[in-house]
């Protein structure tokens, strides 16, 4: 597969994740909405880091900043941090079994959430509700499904 189709594939999945991030859901489910964009960035950081690099993660974070409001750069910083960790350990994490990977993803999303929580706290408006951490759990639970879907789509593109 050429890097050109790889780029197209990445762009397409990013656009879908972007829409999933803002599509309206009932209040209860909205609280548990997984961070699709972050999961995608983790996936591509593990599987195509040579194509995406950190800039992709940074741009995705900026997009989330524009999309959901808040400080510009907040999500961008958290995304870059997670992508750096993921890319540093990519060769190790990639050979983990999927359930083991899901656990790593849980840790990564918690790091991401903590980063956002921390910045919120510095700015002065941190919500301390435990619901803040729920999307991390949901994201980890959905990780095997996400890997299955993205792997299948990558194979069909190839």
């Amino acid at each position, binding site marked *: *597969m050429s*890097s050109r189709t*790889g780029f197209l594939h990445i762009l397409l999945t990013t656009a879908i994740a*972007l*829409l999933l991030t*803002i*599509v*309206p*859901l009932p*209040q209860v489910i*909205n*609280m548990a*909405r997984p961070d699709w964009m972050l999961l995608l960035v983790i996936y591509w950081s*593990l*599987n*195509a*880091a*040579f*194509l995406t*690099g*950190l*800039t992709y993660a*940074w741009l995705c*974070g*900026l*997009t989330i*900043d*524009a*999309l*959901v*409001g*808040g*400080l*510009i*750069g*907040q999500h*961008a*910083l958290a995304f*870059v*941090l997670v992508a*750096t960790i993921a*890319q*540093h350990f*990519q*060769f190790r994490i*990639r050979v983990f079994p999927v359930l083991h990977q899901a656990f790593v993803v849980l840790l990564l999303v918690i790091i991401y959430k903590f980063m956002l929580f921390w*910045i919120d706290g510095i*700015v002065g*408006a941190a*919500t301390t*509700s435990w*619901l*803040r951490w729920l999307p991390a759990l949901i994201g980890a639970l959905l990780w095997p499904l996400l*890997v299955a879907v*993205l*792997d299948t789509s*990558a*194979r069909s593109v*190839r």
Partner: protein
Amino acid sequence: MARFGSDTRPIIGRGPSLVARFLLLAAISIGLMVADHRNNYLTKLRNIMSAGIYPAHWLVDAPFRASSWLMSSFADRDQLRNENARLAAQVRDLQVSVQRLAAVTAENQRLRELGEATEDITKKRMVAQIMHVDLDPLRHRVLLNKGQSDGVFKGQPILDAHGVFGQITQVGRYTSEAILISDPEHAIPVRVNRSGLRTIAAGTGNLNKLNMPFLTGEADIKVGDLLISSGLGGIFPAGYPVGIVTRMERNPAETFATVEARPLAKLDSDYEVVLIWYQPPSIEPAITPATITNTPVSVEALESGANSDQKPDAASSSTTGTPAAKPKATSSGTGSSTRPTP
């Protein structure tokens, strides 16, 4: 696992290291955050970003707009007739209750002029739709479909049919972000309608609850009291309903009483809200014989009161035309008194 190409390993020595790239991007992000938080340097960037993201917001909102359009185009006749009858009855009721408004407003205006206190004047209204887009669930924010191109500005007050809704926090090219009065970062200066007691109602993060943290046990407030905006913050015009007191507990052991209120605006089920432009009361009122003898509010006020939602432009043009808007215009010309209001 998907793998693109045979070699996923970066060639050693190619480009800066992972840590260096991370530090660079992190530094840029932190710089952006500081610039955004400290002073509003990034208005331009935010504007561009919001315009860039607009297609996504538009696309997600589109099915909802389409479905409401379909519903209205294919509504059956009985349903339309029922709705029409209901609306007609509502208009009649509203007009009856508004009949004395003109006289009362005129009287109020005269009394205020005697006391040399001017009232704030609503200059323009605009209906905005809340877009069907979910923002951060931890903060009570909504996206409106009006932006800089419609003249929306930061800090603009928003009302709905029942009371104060919130204010604009960020303005984009075509959209703007609003904070609800129930957001924990929001507080609104209010007055108890019955006793005139002034306090502050802060959001709690719960859509149905406002909190009034600064009331002592002796405060003259009780369950069922109506809270109206006091106009002191300079953002919200005075006199609009904000909430109803639902809980009042005096604990002798504590300095402050626990007072809670329920917002009157339908924060969770609104689809349309009203943006308003108003002129805050000026501190140098002018008394001209013309404004005293005139009855300032006429038929236009009746119309604007009853049909404000349907005809925002007509209402705005008529309100600016009434003598009610005069004191500001004449104040510089006459310069009769420059005493501040008591």
